[in-house]
């Protein structure tokens, strides 16, 4: 018991100094590294443990985080546009208003991100992934209202079918109202994901797994659904005008509310 109290006290002191028991660097180390960086020599945090650090408000534009651990880090208002975040672990990171535009997040893990300060998602707090590369990433988070315009999500795993433990209170990825216009979602696992009122105009959904996904009210104008799995997909008032490959999709007849889709 005494040992536990001691460990908790030690952790509290380290946290007060901006350090964590696990992190390789302190917040001050990170800021100093950013100050030393410049055009042509971006800050390098590759394979560093930055878990739980308060990195809010810092400008990391162009920095290299490949393979870094950002578990539980606070990235509120942080600027990560154009950064290299290949294979990073961002699970439980706080990403309110975080700018990931154009960043390379391929193969990253984004499970249980904290994107909102309230139970109801607020679009103004949502992070931006516009033009980011999230191909092969694992995403299981509430990101409603986020900007994912033109993002690459090919083979990304956003679904929550059988692989999600039943004890988890967050049972599916929420992308309601997201701007995914022109995004590449080819081969992505979106099973059971909520895409209500999402903007998917011109999106590439070839071969995507949309089983039991909620696409009600979504705009799929001009989207390519060739080979997409639509069994149980809710298409209530989803806009399918000029959508391509519907005739080559899988299980369209088993989609829900197909008759109410706008075609």
């Amino acid at each position, binding site marked *: 018991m005494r040992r536990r109290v001691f460990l908790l006290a030690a952790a509290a002191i380290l946290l007060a100094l*901006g350090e964590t028991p696990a992190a390789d660097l302190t917040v001050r180390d990170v800021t100093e590294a950013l100050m030393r960086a410049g055009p042509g020599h971006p800050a390098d945090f590759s394979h560093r443990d930055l878990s739980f650090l308060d990195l809010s408000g810092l400008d990391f534009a162009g920095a290299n985080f490949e393979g870094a651990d950002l578990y539980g880090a606070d990235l509120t208002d942080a600027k990560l546009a154009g950064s290299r975040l290949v294979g990073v672990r961002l699970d439980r990171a706080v990403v309110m208003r975080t700018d990931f535009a154009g960043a390379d997040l391929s193969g990253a893990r984004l499970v249980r991100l904290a994107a909102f300060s309230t139970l109801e998602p607020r679009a103004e707090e949502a992070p931006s992934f516009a033009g980011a590369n999230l191909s092969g990433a694992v995403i299981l988070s509430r990101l409603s209202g986020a900007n994912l315009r033109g993002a690459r999500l090919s083979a990304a795993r956003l679904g929550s079918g059988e692989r999600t433990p039943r004890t988890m209170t967050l049972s599916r990825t929420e992308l309601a109202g997201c701007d995914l216009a022109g995004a590449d979602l080819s081969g992505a696992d979106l099973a059971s994901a909520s895409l209500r009122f999402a903007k998917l105009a011109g999106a590439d959904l070839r071969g995507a797994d949309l089983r039991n996904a909620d696409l009600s009210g979504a705009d799929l104008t001009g989207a390519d659904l060739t080979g997409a799995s639509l069994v149980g997909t809710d298409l209530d008032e989803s806009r399918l005008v000029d959508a391509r490959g519907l005739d080559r999709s899988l299980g369209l007849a088993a989609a829900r509310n197909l008759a109410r889709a706008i075609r």
Partner: protein
Amino acid sequence: MRALRLLAAAAALALSGPASAEGGAPPVDTALVLAVDVSGSVDAERYRLQMEGIAAALEDPDVQHALLSGPSQAMLLALVQWSDRPRLSIPWTRIARPADAEAFADRVRALSRDAAEFTCMGRMLSFVYGKVLPQVPAPAARSVVDVSGDGSDNCNAERVVELRDALVATDVTINGLPILEGKEASTLADWYRDEVIGGAGAFLLPAHGFGDFARAIRQKFITEISWVPTTTFE
């Protein structure tokens, strides 16, 4: 014509001040962080009194003389508003002429109140230690954090003393301007003395209510910045 060009170049060099040995930004005498409490007890009028007090002080010729009185005749100034979370409201700004101080004063007056509920001084000190001071853009002969507020830390998220000591260990001086108004009026000066201030020449200069803030901050600026031996004011 060539003589005119040479004269212009010489004038430009004189105005820009001495360059640092490393060829980067020229050095300054002091890097000063103004950390202003905007917690729940600081209502709109009290906020205005604080910001107007800071702005008026920066426009004061005596303060301007103090700001520019050191060997480098320049300083760096930043302003942090703090409550639940700290925010760098005005990033590091070089003050090398009275006009620079006056422009900074204009920015102070134009700030929006970033208010919240709690008095999280520990979190503010952590922010200054981890993010603000490491971003000082020029060599500074000394670094000072000027903390003002009307209450002790009620956030409990982080510990003020450890953070104060961490700052002092990096040669930072923390001065305090407790505003003695409200329920902590009789105890706040002691708390600031025991828990907040520290470092070489650190001092406390209380304001006796928000209405006295402008007088206190002016006096504090002069004492803090001018190269006069520091004293404890009670």
